[in-house]
């Protein structure tokens, strides 16, 4: 008998500790929603607080590591925001996922979807925390700002894939043309994750830049990625304007000439921060 086998019976789940639940989450999370004998709502009631706690703890650990690039109070700010980075895209994108699956003839209850998504996010958070030491090691050698941002984004992508896999594996079988629903959901969640990261920035802060909990609501992740790409080829001068219904009343920053700038001249920290994250 496999000594690592963990029972998913109702009694064992309700009494399991956070550590044991973490093990179950990493091994086979889909078993927690694949039990016909258990009322899913009761399981959601039992597991929701624990899974949220794992999301907060794992996300905070990841955030603290990301904040270490700058240090000081950025440890706290990034630690507070990282769990939101995982939760917000899921909260916003779940109705879309449900609609995609319904269009593919797979109707499922909100309870099951909520439980599956909590499992997915918690698993992502735990994996993110697990990769934190590696990320910290890399950030501790003070790489270039853009490389640091890429490292953070790359880590999130790497740990996000198992999370998305958990979400799809926790859904019931059946339906037609399900790959279409999965592809659409992947696109939606990917875009939401990127934009949420932009909205909640900064996470990676340059060593000499001012620290702020949030930046103004301006531009979007796509234009900033384009600006970063242009900056990498020596074209500076991107202006980030207030955007959207919530950001349009923000005073616009001083316009910079959109031409090649001498790389020997150091830009002001605020101008540098117009880049990604």
């Amino acid at each position, binding site marked *: 008998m496999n000594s690592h086998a963990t029972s998913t019976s109702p009694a064992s789940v309700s009494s399991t500790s956070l550590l044991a639940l973490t093990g179950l989450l990493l091994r086979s999370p889909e078993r927690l929603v694949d039990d016909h*004998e258990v009322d899913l709502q009761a399981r959601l009631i039992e597991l*929701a607080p624990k899974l949220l706690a794992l999301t907060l703890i794992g996300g905070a650990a990841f955030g603290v590591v990301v904040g270490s690039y700058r240090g000081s109070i950025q440890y706290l700010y990034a630690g507070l925001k990282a769990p939101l980075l995982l939760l917000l895209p899921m909260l916003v994108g779940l109705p879309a996922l449900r609609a995609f699956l319904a269009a593919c003839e797979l109707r499922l209850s909100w309870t099951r979807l909520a439980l599956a998504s909590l499992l997915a996010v918690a698993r992502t958070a735990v994996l993110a925390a697990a990769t934190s030491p590696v990320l910290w090691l890399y950030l501790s050698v003070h790489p270039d700002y853009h490389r640091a941002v890429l490292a953070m984004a790359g880590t999130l992508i790497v740990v996000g894939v198992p999370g998305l896999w958990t979400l799809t594996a926790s859904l019931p079988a059946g339906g037609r043309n399900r790959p279409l629903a999965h592809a659409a959901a992947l696109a939606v969640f990917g875009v939401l994750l990127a934009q949420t990261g932009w909205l909640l920035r900064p996470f990676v802060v340059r060593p000499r830049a001012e620290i702020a909990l*949030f930046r103004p609501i301006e531009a979007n992740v796509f234009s900033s990625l384009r600006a970063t790409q242009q900056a990498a080829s020596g074209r500076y001068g991107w202006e980030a304007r207030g955007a959207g219904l919530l950001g349009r009343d923000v005073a616009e920053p001083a316009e910079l000439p959109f031409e090649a700038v001498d790389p020997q001249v150091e830009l002001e920290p605020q101008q540098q921060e117009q880049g990604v994250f």
Partner: protein
Amino acid sequence: MLAILWISRSTVALALVLGYFGAGAAASMRLARRGHALGLVASAWIAWPLLISVLFGAAELRSRTPIVGPFGARISQGLASLRASLAEAQSESPLELASQGQLASLELALRQADDRVASVDRLIAELEATQPDSTQPDASTREFERSRQASLLTLRSAREHAADELEQVLAMLLSVRVQIGLHALTSPATVAPVRERLAELETRVAALAELSSFDAGRAALPLEGC
């Protein structure tokens, strides 16, 4: 270096954030009133959209202590075997023999019947443990003892009847599995007998509820005078 706490200058943004957490607070209060644990109540602040089904779902899931009756294990075993047989048959034939809704209704009815038997068992045990004060054998004590004995007799009789019915339903589960096996051998021609047996099973299970409620009603009468 001083950290600058940047707060959005847009009141709409603030209103949205406050609105979200305000809804979370309302959700937390509702869950607390329903008797949920502190962890779930606190979780609702952040993740109340995920708990909508809990917020507006049936309250009795938490309000009563669930009881596993004497037939619990056999019901689980019987239904698991039935599901396995149906799954095997489904893999070989495109026709659906029983919907998940039917199986869920079947399980619910069996569990409720088992729950009722367990409740009666508890009531019988409480009555048996209730002994009149033998030091002062007056008329009221004798009357109470008579009522107690009559109630015990009625409850035991009803309990045995309900238990027998449940036993027969569990035996029928086995016969349904036999029909499913025959269907697997002979293909679509035997779908109708399987569905008929399942329908018969559903009728028998539905009758369990009526029978038990009738017996429970009769059992209450002798204690009315106490």
